[in-house]
């Protein structure tokens, strides 16, 4: 068996513990974002499976350019900053998007409780770009919202409000979001609208 030979060789060299060999490319994506990149709420890594390639690309570019995920960013966003930079520098950004975007999505569990009826009214402001069914609109560069990690939607809405996202002048679409989130006056409104998105 090849593995045995490699291990024996490594043991013979004495100083090497591991073995060289084919890398599990992009294993670090799944490390945080979980099996098939369906998310791991425990470490605040959202579901990526099924995300639009153009949206994934833009966000990775944003992380690489420091538009998102700067050291002052929220607790988990800053961990993505260096990863965006890495795929950009290694020239693997497009491959990463193809890999992650192609994984089989699973409908995430609901973790946010809210008044979906009230959320439906609030969602009117979202629907013009993200669609009445939350399916997204590529022409408007608005990603799908349905069947995403609900806790992540809450975090991002709060980040837009707090200026942790969308405040960079290079972030054109983020700036649009910053303007729209003013229609969600408080935490309850955010929970309600996400509770409604959970029904889409």
């Amino acid at each position, binding site marked *: *068996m090849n*593995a*045995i030979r490699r*291990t*024996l060789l*490594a*043991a013979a060299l*004495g*100083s090497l*513990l*591991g*073995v*060289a*060999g*084919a*890398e*599990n*490319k992009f*294993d*670090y994506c*799944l*490390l*945080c*974002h*979980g*099996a*098939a990149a*369906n*998310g*791991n*709420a*425990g*470490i605040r*890594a959202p579901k990526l499976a099924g995300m639009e390639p153009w949206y994934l690309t833009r966000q990775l570019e944003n992380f690489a350019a420091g538009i998102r995920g700067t*050291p002052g960013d929220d607790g988990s966003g*800053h*961990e*993505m*900053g*260096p*990863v965006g*930079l*890495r795929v950009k520098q290694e020239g693997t950004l497009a491959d990463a998007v193809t890999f992650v975007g192609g994984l089989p999505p*699973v409908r995430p569990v609901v973790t946010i409780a809210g008044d979906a009826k009230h959320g439906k009214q609030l969602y009117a402001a979202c629907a013009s770009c993200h669609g009445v069914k939350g399916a997204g609109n590529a022409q408007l560069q608005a990603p799908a919202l349905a069947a995403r990690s609900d806790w992540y939607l809450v975090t991002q809405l709060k980040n837009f409000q707090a200026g942790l996202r969308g405040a960079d002048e290079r972030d054109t679409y983020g700036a649009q979001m910053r303007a729209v989130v003013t229609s969600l006056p408080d935490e309850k409104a955010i929970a309600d609208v996400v509770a409604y998105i959970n029904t889409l």
Partner: protein
Amino acid sequence: MQSKVSRRDFLQLAGAVGGSNAVYRAAMGLGLVPTVAVVKPNVAPLRKPRKVLVLGAGISGLTAAYELNKKGYEVQILEASFRAGGRNMTVRNGDRIDETGYPQVCNFDKDPDLYFNCGPARIPGHHVNLLGYCKELGVELEPFINDNRNAWVQDDAMFDGKPIRAREYMSDSRGFVAELLSKSMKPDQFAAPMTKDDYERLREYVKYLGTLDPNFKYVGTSNAGLATHDFTSPEVLKTPLDGRELLKSQFMAIMNFGETDDQAAMMMEPVGGMDRVPAGFLRQIGHLVQYHSQVQRIRVLDKGGVEVTYRRDGEYTTVRADYVLNCIPMHLLAGIEHNFPKEQAAGFLAVPRGKLFKIGLQMKERFWEKEGIYGGISWTTQNIQQIWYPAHGIHRQKGVVLAAYTFDPNSGEKFARLAPADRIKLAIEQGSKIHPNYGDYVETGVTVAWHQMNHMLGCAAQWDEPLFAKWFKTLQKPAGSHYLMGDQVSYHPGWQEGAIASAHHAIADIDAREHAGQAVSA
């Protein structure tokens, strides 16, 4: 009529007749003196073939695989990364540091003394299981110097941030406190059983505690170090430092570090790096490890056994085993597809992941030895918290210094958010408050942010008493024939001994099941 003799009475009696040696021997007979010995579970040889899948080639996984393999179990280890050892990781020239966003390569010179233990780095004398494996696997050990009174203490809160020797802090603060105590202690403050003689003995004790003079005054002590070391003229003591100034420093909380159970002499380290421990296991069972195999799905089967799906070179493979010993960090398990009992899965997210952080710097000269420092730790209240000096390679030209080791999660976060070069810059800036021209000696360095390392994303699980009470038993209890392992499922997280304890616990349970006729079948 028979009179009852208590154990304590009996020991006093034995002492009166036979002296203290008799007391000791009598106590051994009663089982009161704890012995330090290996407590490996005695796993019986198998009666029928059993397949065991171990997830993770860290210390707990290697231990369990090594023991079960010896007894005839068919064992395979799936390891997600390119290397074994888990957080037992030593880097040398050319080694990779597999951090998710900031992968690095170690550029130390090629030299057997120029290595850095990124994870565990010391072994106390009572970690008998780990020491037992070192002996059994031929891992050569040498003394590790942990506590060094000649190293520095630096705190911006005292003496305007000027560093002082640890021995000065400890001796002068104790002298200051002991003198005040002896002045203020009065016989009538103590409860009745304290006789006048008892009180006098207490004063004597306080005198020795603070190295006070015969008049119970603290006038300095050679414990704090001499002013000069010219041994052709009379010794000159250093002038004691102002006690009130010393008490401004939070070093008081760390002062007894070198006396704690796990940190007191005698400490040891493997010759050539801590990863000689996993290397020792691999010499025996290296052929059982399959690398680059990232687990994606675990299903505990109703009819017994466990099914595991892993990803390797982009391919997905599913294997079935009679038992699964799972060493994957709990916070990562939360992102894997599984069917564990709900109450157990909730525990995966209950215990926070550790954010410990380390930096190792190769120094072109062992400048600390010119300061009279050979091994040990300097302490600072800055983010870097510690500077360790290597106990190996003494008087050689170069050495690798540990330039930061943060326990506090905020400091770990602060460093981790920076790019490696900036982390090193910050460590040099802070270290310069302890060693002048510190940065001039730095040739190259490595940074290890455990909570951003691939396949880890965390250091030791941050248990506390309420968490232990609420979750430990639930997490330790097997789900069918699936066992959670690692230092994360021990009362000694962050230590290899804890990892081994968890492995021994699991394999003892498997052994009991196999030999109680409750075996599961695949």
